[in-house]
């Protein structure tokens, strides 16, 4: 009888990308109503707990006995020993993920997909437009921009949330605000009279932001409708389609471009994305069914 296969013992995708390794929850914290951030640690065994990833990539996370979902990495790529995922509890699996506590096991496959164009961003102004939970996949890009700050021009973060209570990473945004080398504007769709920040949709911030459209690159993530409005505003500000990148979300299952669940016209979101340059998906964005 053949010996049973060796269980995967490290965080990098094992030779078979469909086989998850086991990670454990190190910490869980609440970031907004229904939104939880989990710090995961891959089971050791090869002397390292490192799990290198690029900003914008995602992992497939499994809650054993419940199911598997794609979740973007939201932590610092320079700290590959701590895998941070921010989850909105909206379905059976994400709800189960959000209920996990320290020490609980999580199946993990990844990292998958094409991330944000950090190399192309070098030497240019970087405009980040995030809506709702869309800030989570962009946070690794921000960490990388901060780490190599001298390599980039102006950095602008425009973030929109539903209400003040729904603002993600609030304390961290406050700490970023204290930096003098980034422009940050946060807006909410509605607020009570105690809120003193902006109110209005995030796209209205674009025309007020200070960047050079001829030498800028935009990274956009949020609900698809919001991204369409943001792209219109960015183009109106002078950015061309080759300078706008967006992170798409589709029903990703296998994460390796095999099953076809996330097929988006001629591309697979899991394999060719989730980050796409706008001109490559532009014609598909307005279609009702694809």
């Amino acid at each position: 009888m053949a010996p049973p296969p060796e269980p995967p013992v490290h965080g990098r995708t094992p030779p078979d990308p469909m086989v998850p390794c086991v990670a454990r929850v190190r910490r869980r914290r609440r970031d907004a109503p229904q939104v939880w951030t989990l710090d995961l640690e891959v089971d050791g065994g090869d002397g390292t707990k490192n799990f290198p990833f690029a900003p914008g990539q995602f992992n497939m996370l499994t809650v054993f006995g419940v199911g598997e979902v794609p979740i973007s990495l939201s932590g610092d790529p320079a700290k590959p020993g701590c895998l941070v995922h921010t989850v909105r509890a909206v379905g059976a699996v994400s709800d189960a993920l959000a209920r996990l506590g320290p020490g609980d096991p999580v199946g993990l496959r990844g990292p998958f997909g094409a991330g944000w164009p950090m190399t192309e961003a070098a030497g240019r102004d970087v405009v980040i437009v995030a809506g709702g939970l869309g800030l989570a996949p962009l946070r690794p890009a921000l960490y990388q921009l901060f780490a190599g700050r001298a390599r980039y021009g102006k950095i602008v973060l425009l973030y929109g949330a539903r209400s003040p209570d729904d603002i993600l990473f609030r304390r961290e945004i406050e700490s970023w605000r204290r930096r003098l080398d980034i422009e940050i504007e946060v807006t909410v769709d509605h607020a009570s009279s105690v809120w003193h920040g902006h109110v209005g949709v995030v796209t209205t911030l674009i025309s007020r932001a200070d960047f050079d459209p001829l030498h800028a690159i935009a990274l956009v993530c949020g609900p698809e409708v919001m991204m369409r409005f943001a792209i219109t505003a960015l183009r109106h500000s002078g950015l061309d389609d080759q300078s706008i990148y967006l992170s798409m979300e589709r029903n990703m299952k296998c994460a390796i471009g095999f099953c076809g669940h996330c097929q988006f016209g001629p591309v697979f979101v899991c394999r060719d994305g989730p980050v796409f340059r706008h001109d490559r998906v532009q014609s598909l964005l307005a279609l009702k069914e694809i």
Partner: protein
Amino acid sequence: MEGLERIVKEHPFFAGLEEGFLNLVCGCAKNVRFEAGQYLFHEGEPADQFYLIRHGRIALELTAPGRGAIIFQTLTEGEIVGVSWVIPPYRWTYDARALDLLRAIAIDAACLRQKCEADHDLGYEMMKRFLPILVQRLQATRLQILDVYGAPA
């Protein structure tokens, strides 16, 4: 008056306005200042002025029973406050409150409406400037109504 003309001319809303029209608009304009927390106008009051914001921010609010004031939009330097003066019955449909010290140019709406009636070229010029703002705010409202962040991003 020269100072006022310069301020009006430099405001983004009136950027590139022809000199003759500028004189007509300035004839209806005055400098105003509001302290933080002070209301510019309330819902239901006559919309007898609109404002060009020079400095500071304004919250536009609606009050719902049992919920207090809900801010649905904030406006800042370079923007205008108020479009109700263009459309009968010329009454405000929301409250406007200064969030911090506000400096603005107030344009007398009745005065400008009369001049627009008398000079349709001026009226058309005003419409060309107001319509894009109305459309932009309509689109923003559509996005707000969709409540896109209520669903997973």
